[in-house]
């Protein structure tokens, strides 16, 4: 706990320093301090996880707030670890990212002061979110987190689309916090006050409408996390933000929503089955739709943003399996489910940040996010491309990378349910496995498209002369993340070891054996993952051996003998995704621009697809429009005529007088 507090203090001093120190020191100093803070926090978190049990410190915060307990238990510690890690690397990457001037506005160093201030504030508030266990204080930290991220999203505020993104984000966050406020008030109203540690008792009191309140919390936290149908802010905000911010937000900030949900689960005790099923349905929908929308995107960062929705869905499946396990009193299933969810939080924060950073590196060179204008990046930016491919493999859950481990845990939860004796559990588990498989496949399609179209092949438009891998401040974090992705994939035991205490806390499984069978499975997996690497290396060696002394020529790609191939003849992202989109059209609200080629020598032809979002089109817009129409129907109130104004008063007076006199 002490380490934790020290770390946060360091981070905050760093962010404040960004405001005061001279311009050219802002980024370095604040990044240095917050990096140090993050490291310290990681130390504290690790110690907390290994020691086990909750470290409590009660801060008395004046007459209004009263005593605010800071609790660092296994769950908080794990999230704190992930947050600190992501923010550490994100901050370092950011210094490099911002050094290159964003187009259309001079990045005058003093402008960056506010940016790094917000960055530090975001880091600190996220970390605090995981430990503050006082409803009101929690909400304040939560909102400060939202605000800090909001300001980071609008960093490049002179761009027009930023207005839309920022407002949408702000309003969504407000809706979310409204749900949270209501939830906390309901709980607090039952005499629990503001202290989380009393909430469990309230939730488990049979008179308390626990499921309804859980749903309230789920909605509130789910908006932040980006579950469908309330994810609409996400694909807007992430492209608008600078890439390191996108990485941090998509990598870890949305996970604070997951943290919130898990925290509520700890209060919930034994949830009803229906609740777990509801969570599973929402999660499945998020996973599938998220990836389907991602496939339809051409904007690289928007695509990655939609993948956050998908991964949140996978995490949600884990949580759902966990809750199902709790509901059926099957601690092992619960443990595996929660472990998968919690570990996937860390994994996703690693590979998603990696992907966003690589995308950012590309964006800095090409100044476009449109994949159709990319291509052939790998030849000029090999490191970036390689790392992006690693990230892609990881996010598709392919061995030997980290994504597979957490997904395997969720699968494990599913197939341990499968061999059980409860028909519902068997059915649900089978379906969960099918959904996970489907999502994995679609993710693979999506990233095959991204890597193939954007990074491989031939450039679709002339590349700028400075088209090369970014400097070390950007490359370092990416490399580190790539290594982590591989490391966790090859040696999953350690990472799972970090996640298991939190999972035990959630599963409330003190009954479980100290050494879990899943650990052995992980041994096998790590052997095979290592085997994959070794075998590949061996085959490459064999290949070299075979080719020694044999002719190895290069020639242009086979083009059916038509010698004048142009880059524009490559398969485009739209065409690559077309077969899938044809199948998923119903949920896409896809609008297609098609101009058929005409005549023997067609002058022009056009095929574009622009994905919509059914939730926006069919769920949110109608509500907003109806409300809007309803309200604007009352504009006659302010008609400008004095008589009418006085008449209102007269009517009001008459009514109230009569009412007062009669009642």
């Amino acid at each position, binding site marked *: 706990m002490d380490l934790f507090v020290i770390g946060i203090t360091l981070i905050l001093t760093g962010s404040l320093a960004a405001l005061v120190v001279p311009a050219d020191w802002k980024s370095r100093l604040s990044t240095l301090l917050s990096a140090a803070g993050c490291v310290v926090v990681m130390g504290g978190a690790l110690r907390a996880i290994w020691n086990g049990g909750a470290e409590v410190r009660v801060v008395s915060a004046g*007459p209004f707030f009263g005593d605010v307990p800071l609790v660092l238990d296994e769950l908080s510690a794990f999230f704190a670890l992930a947050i600190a890690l992501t923010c550490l690397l994100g901050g370092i990457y950011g210094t490099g990212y911002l050094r290159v001037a964003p187009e259309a506005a001079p990045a005058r160093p003093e402008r960056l002061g506010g940016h790094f201030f917000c960055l530090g504030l975001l880091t600190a508030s996220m970390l605090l979110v995981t430990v503050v266990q006082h409803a009101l204080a929690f909400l304040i930290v939560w*909102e400060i987190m939202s605000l800090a991220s909001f300001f980071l999203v609008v960093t490049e505020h002179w761009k027009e689309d930023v207005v839309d993104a920022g407002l949408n984000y*702000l309003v969504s966050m*407000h809706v979310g916090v409204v749900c949270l406020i209501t939830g906390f008030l*309901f709980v607090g109203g039952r005499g629990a006050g503001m202290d989380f540690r009393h909430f469990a008792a309230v939730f488990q009191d049979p008179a308390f409408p626990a499921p309804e309140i859980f749903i309230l919390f789920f909605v509130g936290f789910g908006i932040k996390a980006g579950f469908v149908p309330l994810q609409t802010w996400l694909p807007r905000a992430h492209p608008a933000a600078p890439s390191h911010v996108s990485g941090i937000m998509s990598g870890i900030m949305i996970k604070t929503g997951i943290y919130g949900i898990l925290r509520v689960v700890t209060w919930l005790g034994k949830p009803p089955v229906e609740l777990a099923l509801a969570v599973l349905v929402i999660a499945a929908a998020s996973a599938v739709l998220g990836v389907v929308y991602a496939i339809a995107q051409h904007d690289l960062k928007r695509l990655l943003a939609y993948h956050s929705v998908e991964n949140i869905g996978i995490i949600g499946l884990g949580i759902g399996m966990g809750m199902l396990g709790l509901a059926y009193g099957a601690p092992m299933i619960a443990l595996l489910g929660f472990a998968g969810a919690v570990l996937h939080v860390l994994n996703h924060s690693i590979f998603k940040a990696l992907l966003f950073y690589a995308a950012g590196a590309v964006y800095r060179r090409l100044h476009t996010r449109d994949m159709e204008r990319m291509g052939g990046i790998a030849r000029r930016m090999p490191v970036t491309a390689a790392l992006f491919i690693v990230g892609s493999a990881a996010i598709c859950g392919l061995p030997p990378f980290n994504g597979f481990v957490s997904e395997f845990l969720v699968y494990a939860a599913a197939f341990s349910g499968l061999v059980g004796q409860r028909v519902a559990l068997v059915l649900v588990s089978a379906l969960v496995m099918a959904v996970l498989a489907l999502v994995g496949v679609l993710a693979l399609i999506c990233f095959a498209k991204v890597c193939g179209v954007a990074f491989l092949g031939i450039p679709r438009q002339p590349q700028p002369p400075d088209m090369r891998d970014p400097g070390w401040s950007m490359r370092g974090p990416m490399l580190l993340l790539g290594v982590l992705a591989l490391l966790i994939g090859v040696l999953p035991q350690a990472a799972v070891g970090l996640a298991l205490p939190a999972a035990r806390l959630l599963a409330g499984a003190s009954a479980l054996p100290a050494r879990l069978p899943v650990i052995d499975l992980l041994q096998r997996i790590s052997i095979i993952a290592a085997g994959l690497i070794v075998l590949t290396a061996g085959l490459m060696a064999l290949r070299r051996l075979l080719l020694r002394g044999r002719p190895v020529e290069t020639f242009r790609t086979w083009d059916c003998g038509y010698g004048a191939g142009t880059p524009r003849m490559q398969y485009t992202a739209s065409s690559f995704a077309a077969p899938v989109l044809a199948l998923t059209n119903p949920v896409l609200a896809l609008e297609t621009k098609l101009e058929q080629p005409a005549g023997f020598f067609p002058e022009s032809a056009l095929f574009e697809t622009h994905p919509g979002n059914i939730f926006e089109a069919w769920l949110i817009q109608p509500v907003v429009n109806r409300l809007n129409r309803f309200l604007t129907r009352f504009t006659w109130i302010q008609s400008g005529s*004095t008589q009418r104004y006085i008449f*209102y*008063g007269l009517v009001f*007076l008459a009514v109230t007088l009569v009412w007062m006199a009669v009642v």
Partner: protein
Amino acid sequence: MLIAILILFPLVAGVLLLGLKSKAANVATIYLYAVLHLVISVWLWRQPSSLLPFFRVDNLNILFLLVLSVLYLGVAFYHGDFLKQSGLSPRWHTWYAICLLLFNCCMTGVILSTHLGLLWVFVEGTTLASAPFIYYEGNKAALEATWKYVFICSVGIALAFVGIILLSMSAGDTVSLFFDDLGANADKLSPFWLRLAFPFILMGFGTKMGLAPVHAWLPDAHAESPAPISAVLSGTLLNTALLGILRVYRVMDLAGQAAQARILLVAMGFLSLFVCAVFVLKNRNYKRMLAYSSIENMGLIAIGTGLGGVGIFAAMLHLVAHSLGKASLFLTAGNILGHYGTKEVAGVRGLLRVDRTTGWLWIFGFLALAAFPPFPAFLSEFLMAGAILDGGFAWMLVPFFLLLTVILFGMGHSIMQMAFGDPNPSVRRQRTPLVNYVPQVLFLAILVMVGLAMPAPVYDLVQRAAVSLGGGR
């Protein structure tokens, strides 16, 4: 003694200024009075005192007094540059100064007076003293706004007077109209007349306070008057009217007649929220938008008061939050008007590019009003929601939060359109001295301090005020 200074200084100074007719003297006096006001209010906060039977500092009005002084201090300093820019002739310059002094004097009087009749006189005085400001720009629109302001408020005031007469009827000849007296003998009051009196008073002062449905004059007046005056109008004038209602409401409460009064307050509050929601969605003029948001916040305060208990604490806290936040927004709006020369939202783009400080002040002011932490409005709305829940009206949370969200969206839309984006190249950044930023920064800083780690004194201030209204945490 101190109170006497507060009340009399403007009158004396006004006469002198009329003689002097020197701009420097005017500005100096405005500053002097502002500082004096703050010093004395703080002093009175530490040692409450009274003047005659007619003026006294008690737990309730000290809160209002302090808000008034702090806000007036800021506004006064903002005036330093504003009056320089205004290019008024010495004569009008002097009159402006005098009206400002008198306006503030009347509001102080309203806050401090212990007698209903006296309070009423001062409220009327505020109308008279503030009307010239609304006519400041001298064009048709200004005239119309002034006419509506004066006429509607006069009718309101007149009806409030009726209310007072009815109240004194219920008091009979045994009880005077001193609040203490009324409070002490609440049981002797005749309920019938009391209940008849309340609607009149509620409507009368409610008109001045800008509660729907008798809010109609407010947007016009606040939009037409110069920025610093809008700040005062919205930041303190409304509060003073509220104080009148609170005083009488307290009497109703003690007399055990509050049940319906509460319902009335809550109803008016929600109506105000609704009105704001309707007009903030489609607003074109950013000063009008701020005015509507004043209506909204008065509505919130009314709701909190009506709910009682924690709600009253929330209302008092919200009063502080709104006054300072709204004042800073209006002052910032003054800067924007200076840069762009238009009150139309459509005419303002890329504020952050034109004048960063103003832009950020604009955004932060909005956040302060939109109840985002670390601003205290968040705490007050949280407590208000809690009060609604404690009252057992869980369903009420739905319209409550729905309307608030709509308002957040409406305001946020305009605010961001103005702050973000690329400015029209023709826009010229006007010279803006430090005094055009300092007050807002000051206000927002105070708010952050209150909202993030409410210091014990502030807490006591609010809590005492709430307790003296029979509520509190």
